[in-house]
């Protein structure tokens, strides 16, 4: 919905899309349905049928975003939440509550809790629990008495009276079935399969098998299912950063046992903060070395929260927190007692420091230099995110062999006004940043040609000079372009400062 004007939910409301013959209805509310409107009606006809019709343009992208948001929120019930794609109608999601229902005191309670919360958001929802995703989809859509909980094995019986549309079929298949006289799922159930397989695309039998549990239907979760996951519901919503960190510490402590059992450590974590009003904030934490330390994780979360304080809104507080380990890595067992008593091993302290700095300052602010095989000074090294392994395998040239390079480098070479002998003499005097320097000693030139194999554009040759002025300041200047061949008026730049 794009309109920002308020809508009255009790009056007929439709969403329209452009189609052949004019705008048509894509979605409608109950009041509109009561007025006799239907999906695919022309907007012009609809206006004739229902006075005071509110029509808004449909916005599939926003719908999709809203559905994803809701699906993320639903991860408070179970980590595996799969929003429906285009084929499923894109207006709901599956929750895999296997093994999660008991946390709420059974499936009925879970369903009631979900219904109550969705109702509070103003979302009238239809819910169903069944053994298979297909059956749950069909029941939620078409069962007259939703919410329903279908016992295992009763799928065929429950689906039989529902229309064939309950099988999530493509419109063509549905039309063909209707023409052939198949109106209800039950009519398809006891028929021999071979003629259907011959007459219809594989879709029909696949959907039927999926609904009845004869074929598997893997769910595509909205967030990668975590390796380890721990969730805590809070009696009172929490509103302070300290409280969030405290709960997160407890969550991590819950996970430590499982990590120790599997000989693993966390490399990436995700903290999900479920706000009272259904919003969810996700905080991703990456680590340089696998860890099991609840204190370390808590500190990283604290630092990260501090950095993104303006983004995360506490609002009326968070009612549930989930901590998931999204990447776990093998971690050598260690004597925790010894580590606690003495100092941690050195690489771990380095990794912990890099983690802390990255969480607080942002990963791009903590960097390490890497050499690159290039003669062009600005390309001869890159600054990449600091990692613990980086300083082991690097091949910097031996210090004695390299040519003079400045300690401070100007990433953007700065133009200087230079008096120099034409064509190829060293500078005599130059002005840079408003100061005039007389050259006392000039060393060079070191000629660096452009890397013609990289780009077609002409890269002028540079002649680098190490310049010393009367006071002892040393500069790295270069002349761009060879006289006569590349340019008629060479320009000079300061590219670095020696000490």
């Amino acid at each position: 919905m794009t309109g920002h004007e308020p809508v009255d939910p009790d009056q007929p409301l439709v969403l329209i899309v452009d189609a052949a013959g004019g705008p048509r209805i894509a979605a409608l509310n109950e009041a509109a349905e009561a007025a006799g409107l239907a999906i695919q009606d022309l907007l012009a006809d609809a206006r004739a049928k229902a006075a005071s019709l509110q029509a808004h343009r449909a916005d599939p992208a926003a719908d999709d975003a809203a559905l994803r948001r809701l699906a993320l929120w639903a991860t408070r019930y179970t980590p595996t939440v799969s929003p429906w794609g285009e084929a499923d109608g894109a207006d709901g999601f599956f929750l895999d509550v296997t093994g999660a229902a008991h946390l709420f005191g059974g499936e009925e309670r879970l369903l009631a809790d979900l219904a109550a919360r969705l109702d509070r958001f103003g979302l009238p929802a239809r819910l169903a629990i069944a053994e298979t995703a297909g059956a749950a989809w069909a029941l939620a859509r078409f069962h007259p008495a939703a919410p329903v909980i279908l016992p295992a094995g009763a799928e065929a019986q429950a689906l039989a009276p529902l229309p064939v549309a309950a099988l999530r079929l493509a419109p063509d298949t549905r039309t063909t079935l209707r023409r052939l006289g198949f109106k209800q799922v039950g009519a398809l159930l006891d028929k021999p399969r071979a003629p259907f397989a011959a007459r219809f695309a594989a879709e029909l039998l696949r959907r039927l098998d999926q609904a009845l549990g004869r074929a598997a239907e893997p769910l595509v979760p909205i967030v990668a299912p975590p390796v380890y996951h721990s969730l805590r519901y809070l009696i009172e919503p929490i509103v302070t950063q300290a409280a969030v960190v405290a709960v997160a510490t407890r969550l991590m402590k819950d996970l430590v046992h499982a990590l120790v059992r599997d000989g693993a450590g966390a490399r990436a974590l995700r903290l999900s903060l479920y706000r009272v009003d259904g919003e969810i904030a996700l905080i991703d934490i990456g680590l340089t070395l696998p860890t099991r330390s609840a204190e370390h994780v808590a500190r990283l979360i604290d630092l990260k929260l501090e950095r993104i304080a303006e983004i995360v809104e506490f609002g009326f507080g968070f009612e549930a927190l989930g901590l998931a380990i999204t990447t776990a890595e093998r971690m050598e067992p260690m004597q925790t007692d010894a580590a606690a008593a003495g100092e941690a091993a050195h690489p771990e302290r380095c990794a912990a420091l890099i983690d802390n700095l990255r969480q607080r300052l942002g990963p791009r602010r903590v960097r390490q230099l890497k050499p690159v095989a290039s003669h062009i000074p600005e390309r001869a090294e890159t600054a990449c995110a600091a990692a613990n392994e980086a300083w082991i395998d690097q091949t910097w040239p031996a210090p004695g062999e390299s040519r003079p390079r400045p300690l401070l480098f100007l990433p953007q070479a700065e133009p200087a006004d230079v008096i120099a002998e034409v064509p190829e003499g060293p500078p005599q005097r130059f002005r840079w940043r408003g100061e005039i320097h007389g050259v006392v000693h000039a060393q060079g030139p070191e000629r660096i040609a452009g890397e013609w194999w990289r780009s077609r554009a002409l890269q002028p040759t540079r002649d680098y000079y190490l310049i010393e002025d009367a006071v002892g300041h040393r500069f790295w200047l270069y002349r761009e372009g060879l006289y006569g061949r590349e340019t008629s008026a060479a320009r000079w730049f300061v590219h670095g400062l020696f000490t």
Partner: protein
Amino acid sequence: MLSVVENRPGNRAEIVHELRRLMAWGGVAEAHALPFGLPALDAHLPQGGLTCGALHEATPEAPSDLPAAFGFIVAIAATMLARMPPDAPVLFVTAPGALIGRPYGHGLNRFGLDPGRVILVEAADDRQALWAMEEALRSAAPAAVAGAVGKLDFRASQRLHFAALESARPLLLLRPPGMPSVAVTRWRIAAARASPDRFGLIAGSCWRVTLERCRNGRPGQWLVEFDHASHRFSLAAALADPAFSRAGSRKRGSENFSRGRKPRWRGDRARAG
């Protein structure tokens, strides 16, 4: 105490030893120090070198001496790192505007500081830079922490000094002059002309180094060279005479000073920290 030490030069070594013993006995463990390898200079420092767990400051004499001051810090870090376990990195924290340009890996490499062991932290402001330095010191993971900041108040310098003290790691701080701090040593650095090697090429750095303030030590001024090949400090030939280095000429050395003529003798005993 300082005056006692200076008035009885014959007993000096004994007294210093006794004082150190007393300090160790009082609970302050004797931190080890990293000497420059220049007897004339090291003699001015209380432990014969830069104390490890302490804040050391370098300030450029003029704004244009900023690269020189940075080079001095890098040279110290390089010599320090050479004596540390090989897996300990050094952390460079820079606040925006505190340096001209950025540290260049190949340049660090020439200075004898393995760029692979350098972690660069580019803070968004001074506050972040201070936080990062303190965090690094408290973790005791890096062998040394170096930083360049725009502003540093007294309280912040206290925090940093104590963090360095606890972790027994040196903190080398490049900062503009004119603000009070608790730094153990404060060096004022000015650029000086490097002496060319036998091929007439510049193969080292040269600074006019003024030890402006030194707790339990004596100020002084030297012309210090750092050789890019051997990664060693040396006194420039003109000033190797100990008579010069004992004097603390606080005036910005005029040209004749660096050329080795005898400097004017000013009210000799400079203020000790």
